[in-house]
Structure formats: structure tokens, C-alpha cells
């Protein structure tokens, strides 16, 4: 199981995916996992992520392949939600298995920066006055640019 990439439309439990992913890579030196959840910002009642069938999952698979190659990983797991989510619900899970710790940690950082501002998702937040589309912050573009060097 070198690559496991999923796009889910229902809430998920990250532990359910990380256990089997880790077990599928005997002999690994390290696993790094990041889980992003809907933040409890004041005023945000819900968050919605939209995707485009023809691009979103294929793009995530390409991202996982490039992380596996760039960081010499044994495997990479990406699980990303689409649909309406509430505070405390997981949005994204990225896990990298490698022989050595630094590759695993950096691969997760790399994948997250690309998922934030270079993947086919559109995000909006629901506040008291309705839905608002969210565009990447300047910081997200700077984070992504680090990997181009």
C-alpha cells in the first residue's frame, strides 16, 4: 500500500485510517500524521468544501505520488473531506511512512501546503449573515513557494 488517497463526503475517524496504514508498512522507521479540523473561530457556524469530480481526486493522487518520490517514502495516506462540516470535525488527514523521521515529517508539511492552496477545492464559511467564500491567504502562497526552491 504505497499510496492511499480518498475523497470522502461523510465524517471520518482519522484513527481508523492511520492504524491500517501503519500496519501496511512493516520495517518503517517513522510515521508522521497531521489531522486538520474545523477550527472553533468565533462566528463560524459551518464550513463547506466543494470539489470537482474530474480534477480533485486525480490531483490528490498526483500530489501523493510526487511526495512519495520527492521524500523517498514507503507510503503516503491522504484523506480529504468534501461537503458541509462543523466545528471539531476532521477536514484532512495526511500520513507519511518512511525509513527516517525527517522525510516523513517534511512530506506531510509538503502535502499540506499543496492541499491548502494548490488542490481543487473551494471553501466557504457560514456565518450569521450567510455563506462567505474563502480564498487562500498570502501566507498560504508563501508556504507553497518554499517547496519550489
Amino acid at each position, binding site marked *: 500500500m504505497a499510496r492511499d488517497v480518498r475523497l470522502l463526503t461523510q465524517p471520518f475517524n482519522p484513527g481508523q485510517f492511520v492504524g491500517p496504514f501503519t500496519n501496511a508498512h512493516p520495517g518503517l522507521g517513522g510515521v508522521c500524521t497531521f489531522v486538520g479540523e474545523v477550527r472553533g473561530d468565533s462566528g463560524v457556524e459551518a464550513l463547506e468544501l466543494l470539489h470537482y469530480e474530474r480534477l480533485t481526486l486525480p490531483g490528490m493522487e498526483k500530489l501523493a505520488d510526487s511526495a512519495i518520490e520527492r521524500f523517498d517514502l514507503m507510503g503516503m495516506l491522504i484523506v480529504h473531506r468534501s461537503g458541509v462540516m462543523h466545528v471539531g470535525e476532521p477536514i484532512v488527514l495526511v500520513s507519511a511512512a518512511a525509513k527516517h523521521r525527517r522525510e516523513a515529517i517534511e512530506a506531510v508539511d509538503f502535502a499540506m501546503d499543496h*492541499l491548502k492552496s494548490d488542490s481543487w477545492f*473551494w471553501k466557504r464559511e457560514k456565518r450569521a449573515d450567510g455563506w462567505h467564500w*474563502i*480564498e487562500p491567504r498570502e501566507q498560504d502562497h508563501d508556504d507553497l513557494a518554499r517547496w519550489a526552491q
Partner: protein
Amino acid sequence: MAVTLVFLGKLADLAGVSDKQLEGPLDWQGLCDELQGPLADAVKQDRTRIAVNGQVLADKTSLSAVDGDEVALLPPVSGG
């Protein structure tokens, strides 16, 4: 058969629909003529991309779609 336009993200709000059928063939000028107001402005913005049948165009003004094609209008993304 027709060309299917798919509006993603905030473009669907501006269009008032998530997709629309147009008679082909459809090029960039034809698309611009078809769209009005804030929707046209958003589609012309540099950071809005276009994909035809799942292939993102390097240059959206090179659009050349025929009946049966799916043309997706992709505003700036934000995920995670």
C-alpha cells in the same frame, strides 16, 4: 449534444446555476460573449482557470470546445 459549462466555487453563485448547456463550438470569445456582469469579470480574472474534459488549459484563451465537451470554470482554490 452540447457543450456543458460547469461553474465551480463562487462562480456557481454568480451564475445562479452549477452548470449550463451551450451550443458548440465554443471558443474564448464565444464564452466571454455568453457571460455577463460580475460572472464575466470573475472568469476573465488571471487566477480563474479553465479545464476541458478534466484537462486544465495552460492558456484559457486557447479554449476550443465542441459538442459533448465539459468546460469547467475554476476560480482560485482553497482547501485543507
